[in-house]
């Protein structure tokens, strides 16, 4: 078993780089989650309110992303995405070469995957909003935007929170697959450290701990949010 000093913060320890890699995992996860949130909202809206073609497109997107392994999606995005970006860029008349950083590529790839899951959660939450409250809003003369902001969103948010929490956890774990894009996040950093030092167990265990810290802390945040959003339901609150 390896020398635990390898995980220290001194000049010969990997502590600092692992810490930075952990922050990178967190950063790319947050960015990807927000990406997925935007996409998920759009897709959920398309599935609920869109016309025929829009709905078909939205449904198709969720079916495909739900059925294809994440690692293939990320590879496809990495190997094919650049070609698409380059083609669009050239078509718009920009001179090449086109490049997106590992961070952006990773963020977009995971966002794409997460968007499908998030749209499911959001759609379910929207459908759980009691129709009576929407009608009531309409009767008192609320516009569509007001209705969404003051009636639908607050209620849907409460229902959606636990599901969104799960989606967030998935995003963190999916981020372990993006090293192909060149991004040095936790998984890539522990692989490099394990390869260089030949201390595989030590570094993979360290990596596991980093993920556990991130998932546990953020889980607490989501629970807190859930509790707060439920205040109205329990009367007095806390």
């Amino acid at each position: 078993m390896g020398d635990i000093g390898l995980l220290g913060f001194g000049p010969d320890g990997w502590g600092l780089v692992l810490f930075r890699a952990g922050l990178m995992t967190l950063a790319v996860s947050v960015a990807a989650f927000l990406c997925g949130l935007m996409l998920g909202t759009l897709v959920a809206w398309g599935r609920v309110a869109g016309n025929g073609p829009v709905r078909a497109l939205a449904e198709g997107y969720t079916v495909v992303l739900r059925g294809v392994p994440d690692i293939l999606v990320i590879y496809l995005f990495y190997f094919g995405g650049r070609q698409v970006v380059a083609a669009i860029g050239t078509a718009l008349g920009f001179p090449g070469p086109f490049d997106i950083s590992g961070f952006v590529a990773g963020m977009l790839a995971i966002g794409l995957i997460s968007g499908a899951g998030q749209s499911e959660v959001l759609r379910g939450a929207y459908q759980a909003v009691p129709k009576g409250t929407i009608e009531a809003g309409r009767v008192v003369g609320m516009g569509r935007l007001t209705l969404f902001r003051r009636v639908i969103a607050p209620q849907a948010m409460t229902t959606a929170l636990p599901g969104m929490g799960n989606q967030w956890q998935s995003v963190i774990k999916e981020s372990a697959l993006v090293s192909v894009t060149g991004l040095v996040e936790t998984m890539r950093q522990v692989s490099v450290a394990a390869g260089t030092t030949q201390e595989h167990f030590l570094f993979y265990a360290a990596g596991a701990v980093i993920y556990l810290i991130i998932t546990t802390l953020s889980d607490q945040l989501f629970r807190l949010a859930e509790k707060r959003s439920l205040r109205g339901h329990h009367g007095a609150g806390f």
Partner: protein
Amino acid sequence: MNITRSTFLRAGLAAAATLASGVPLFAQGKKLVFATEGAFPPFNMTKPDGTLYGFEMDMLAEIAKRAGFEYELISQAWDGMIQGLIDGKYDAVIDSVTITEKRLEVVDFALPYTTGGSTFAVLKESGVELPGGGTSVDLDDEAATEAAIAAIAAVLEGKTVGVHVSTIQADFLEKYLAPRGVTIRTYPNGPDVYQDLTNGRLDAAMASVTNISAFLEKNAETAATTGPAFAGGVMGRGAAIVVQKGNAELADKISAAMKSMSDDGTLEAMSQQWFGINVTPKL
């Protein structure tokens, strides 16, 4: 609810911004960008502070000095390595990449810095020993090849040999040994082959003579090389720096510098320093 969410959001964005600014933007300025894996001792390794070091890094520093260019090294996982080069994410790859016909279709190579030729490594405790140790078999000589393969296959039949995926060694094993009852296991990452040999998952590993020597340098007590070295034919080339298809300017610059390093003995000295033996060819 609102407070939690926006704080969370802001913290995330701040972190993203700080870290994103640390991500180098490639293909800018005149500095050439070289990519490496950073986890293939002693060719390329990573220090805890993120600096890359090893035989290839020393060699590259010297090449750059002689050819007169500035460069920057980045670390990239092997899976996306060649694609990244094709896409122009960096200008060259220095990661013990063997020259193969298939790769020549999509990229170009500078002069090789390891000799061609491949051989086997085994664990001493496994008791596996291949005939023909110390000899060299030329793959262009069909009769000799046939005899050597038959002798090796007799020992390895029913056993597992590990090899880095889509290398000349993998092609060799598929062509000559797989039909004779030897199980071939291909690894997405080269270094993992040695890891599994050390762990006892493989009965033998096949790689270039250079890589095997590098491995044995650190594991001389437990592992040994065995069997003949196969050279000629498809094995006739070593590893080289990879550049984009058609980037003859960079390839020539690098090759010229390497030639001069080979002539004055610098390359050999570096090889002695990192491998304990000379793995480099006379250029």
